């Protein structure tokens, strides 16, 4: 199952060339680009782990791509990696663009629907990622 989170996620995966252009767009808008990764694909898992700090003061996308490749080397095989562009303009101070740039090498097993019976006949529904059934170090491995 293909996880669809963030911008461009319904499109085919972006190539490095396309990623570079998106990064350059962010830099040209003075947004700070940060790299984040996770192996918990639940849609409500908002805070992913940060790879280093968000990158301010960078003029060219190559600098960010350099870090992204370093992150891919370590986490690329079994983690999702996304780029987030933070706009620090007063009043905004929030993420303006965020998109996935790396998916685990193995197919994502997807989500299960969990029904919880509460208060008589009422039912609460929630989703749970199959991948999180395993401990963090064993997810997305063959």
């Amino acid at each position, binding site marked *: 199952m293909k996880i669809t989170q963030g911008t461009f996620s319904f499109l085919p995966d972006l190539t490095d060339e396309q990623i570079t252009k998106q990064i350059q767009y962010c830099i040209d808008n003075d947004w700070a680009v940060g790299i984040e990764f996770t192996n918990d694909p639940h849609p409500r898992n908002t805070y992913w782990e940060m790879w*280093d700090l968000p*990158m301010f*003061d*960078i*003029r*060219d*996308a*190559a*600098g*960010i791509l*350099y*870090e992204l490749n370093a992150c891919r080397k370590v986490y690329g095989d079994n983690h999702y990696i996304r780029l987030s562009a933070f706009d620090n303009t007063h009043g905004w101070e929030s993420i303006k663009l965020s998109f996935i740039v790396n998916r685990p090498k193995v197919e994502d097993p997807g989500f299960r629907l969990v029904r919880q019976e509460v208060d008589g006949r009422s039912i609460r529904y929630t989703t749970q990622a199959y991948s999180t059934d395993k401990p963090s170090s064993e997810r997305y491995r063959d």
Partner: protein
Amino acid sequence: MSEIKSFNLQKAFEASGVKEVLDELDRDLIGLLPVKTRIHETASLLLVNKAREELNLSKIQPSLHMSFTGNPGTGKTTVAMRMAKLLYRLGYVRKGHLVLVTRDDLVGQYIGHTAPKTKEILKKAMGGVLFIDEAYYLYRPENERDYGQEVIEILLQVMEDHRDDLVVILAGYADKMDKFFSSNPGFRSRVAHHIDFPDYSDDELFEIAIKMLKEQNYVLGDNAVTILKEYIAKRREQPHFANARSIRNGLDRAILRQANRLFNKGDVELNAKDLSEIDYEDFALSRVLKSKPPTQP
């Protein structure tokens, strides 16, 4: 896709705006003839290379890393800035900014600090030019555990793998740079262009002085011409002579003395000429003119 069969160098030269940068270089920088010639040569080489690329004759990105050697104050940094602009106009770097660093900016204080610090700088420089002043300090053979070695390794790798992302310029004194290159053969083979900056002659320094004064809206009084020339000759004999930089400092002090002289005149009306003219007396009081040439120890 239609194939381009010919390429007009002259048109490309003018369209790219390279001509402007080169003209500016010739006009703004006094002396430095060998440097200018080398830059002209490099520019034409790169332009021809672009033309060859258009006609599918070459696909290799030429190595553009350079080394600038010369004494202090000979214009290495100034030329590096022009170089960044030039490479940008020619389309060899994408942004054309210059990041100026020395050993301090690259080497960390503790074990494990160096790599992130160096990478941070490299990321900032990508798309532009990284200028490493006094690059030979990176290599300290007397200390085996010096972190400079780590910087060199990262730098060499990035210079190789990211050839089209950034251009590295290493700068420093000629003799120390020679030693640096001979003990780091990796650098020698990766640096394609070596440009040597000669010292300025007295006449050139005089011309530079006039130009510097003009930039700050000062003029040299007629009676001060000889003494400034004498000052330049004497300053050269002093230890730690740094070419144009010494002259700038000398002029700054002359301006200071001029202000003092005007102030001491007391209650008089001053016109624009009084306020902008540097006179004989402003140089005459200089420590440099009074001192004897230093005796060799």
